[in-house]
């Protein structure tokens, strides 16, 4: 496979052909914020947090392949401003109340807010009605905390192979659903493997019985599973 030479933040780096900008940047020690990306899962380019400036055009780093001679900026003032706006939009969208959340302290959204310097949200809080489904014996889903990253959908479909999760509705009415929009406990396709819990970046999917700050997701496990399968063929 041919190597590509490109510039990230002014520094020349080399990358593998077919690799994404995100992978190439990480290989060379440049971190780019992400939310819908999870190692081991396909990329969908949905959250837009990993947008980078490629020769004056904004591109998602996760779904843009490296090319020879690219000149990439990952952390301009404009990109930082956009990323903060995006995270603020998420906080305004649903009831993300860190103080009473199972994932507080282990939450990717909460961490993003810190790393992007979000000290308050400039937008109206939409305060939608969101349900909490604890019909499953072991797990629960609180839609208030869901950011629609679809990592659970992809983990269930691509890694566990059962596709219990999907999305219904559109716009801010979109919701993660199990099977044919049934209560999770009634979703027959669910194997209760818990991979969706591993994948979830926030407190939306949780182990029942966990209380504030107790839910840790260990999302790195997904990549380990995928890699192990690859190695064993």
């Amino acid at each position, binding site marked *: 496979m041919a190597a590509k030479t490109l510039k990230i933040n002014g520094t020349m780096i080399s990358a593998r052909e077919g690799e994404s900008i995100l992978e190439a940047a990480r290989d060379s020690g440049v971190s780019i914020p992400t939310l819908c990306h999870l190692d081991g899962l396909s990329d969908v380019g949905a959250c837009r947090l990993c947008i980078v400036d490629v020769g004056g055009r904004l591109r998602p780093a996760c779904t843009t392949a490296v090319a020879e001679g690219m000149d990439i900026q990952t952390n301009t003032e404009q990109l930082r401003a956009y990323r903060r706006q995006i995270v603020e939009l998420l906080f305004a969208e649903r*009831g993300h109340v860190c*103080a009473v959340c199972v994932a507080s302290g282990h939450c990717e959204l909460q961490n993003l807010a810190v790393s992007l310097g979000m000290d308050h949200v400039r937008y109206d809080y939409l305060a939608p009605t969101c349900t909490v489904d604890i019909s499953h014996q072991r797990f629960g889903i609180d839609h208030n905390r869901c950011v629609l990253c679809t990592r659970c959908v992809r983990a269930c479909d691509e890694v566990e192979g059962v596709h219990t999760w999907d999305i219904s509705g559109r716009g801010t009415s979109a919701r993660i659903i199990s099977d044919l929009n049934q209560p999770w406990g009634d979703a027959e396709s669910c194997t209760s493997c818990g991979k969706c819990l591993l994948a979830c970046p926030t407190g939306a999917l949780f182990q029942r019985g966990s209380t504030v700050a107790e839910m840790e997701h260990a999302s790195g496990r997904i990549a380990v599973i995928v890699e192990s399968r690859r190695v064993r063929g």
Partner: protein
Amino acid sequence: MSDTPKIKLATVWLGGCSGCHMSLLDLDEWLIDLAARVDLVYSPIADIKVFPEGVDLALVEGAIASDEHMEIIHTVRRNSTLLVSLGDCAVTGNVTALRNPLGEAGLTLQQIYVDHGDPRGIIPAEPGIVPVLLDKVVPVHAVVAVDYFLPGCPPPAPRIRALLEALLAGRIPTAEGAKMLRFG
């Protein structure tokens, strides 16, 4: 005692649990240093009825949840040079705003006091005594301009101290890093 004039400090308690004030009190012995540099001119921990004029710094805990809060916050803003949103309720609405998805104030009270609560089913109403709830709880900056934000539920005492030290030294408080910013 230094000769520099003391700054007039006010702390305000709106729609919140008073946890932020508890965290303020958690500053322990540093409070003595603070007392040397400020005059506490208004606070739930001081028996002062009217928010005074000419306040240098107001720390506001809690969200705007009632007509009373709405009235006070405008006075606070008018009479204060710097206004700080102290804690998650003031900054985001937080727990105080958890009722927002239930609908407007009347519906919320109906659900809480009648449908799911008090067996007598009476919605408390004492005009002039019990403040009237707003239909939607909002953070402080949705109503008046806010100069600084100090997240946290509650903001840990060192975070409050870092902000106060910066302001007392005439510096802009840093708003970055988990130490200063983490919600929850």
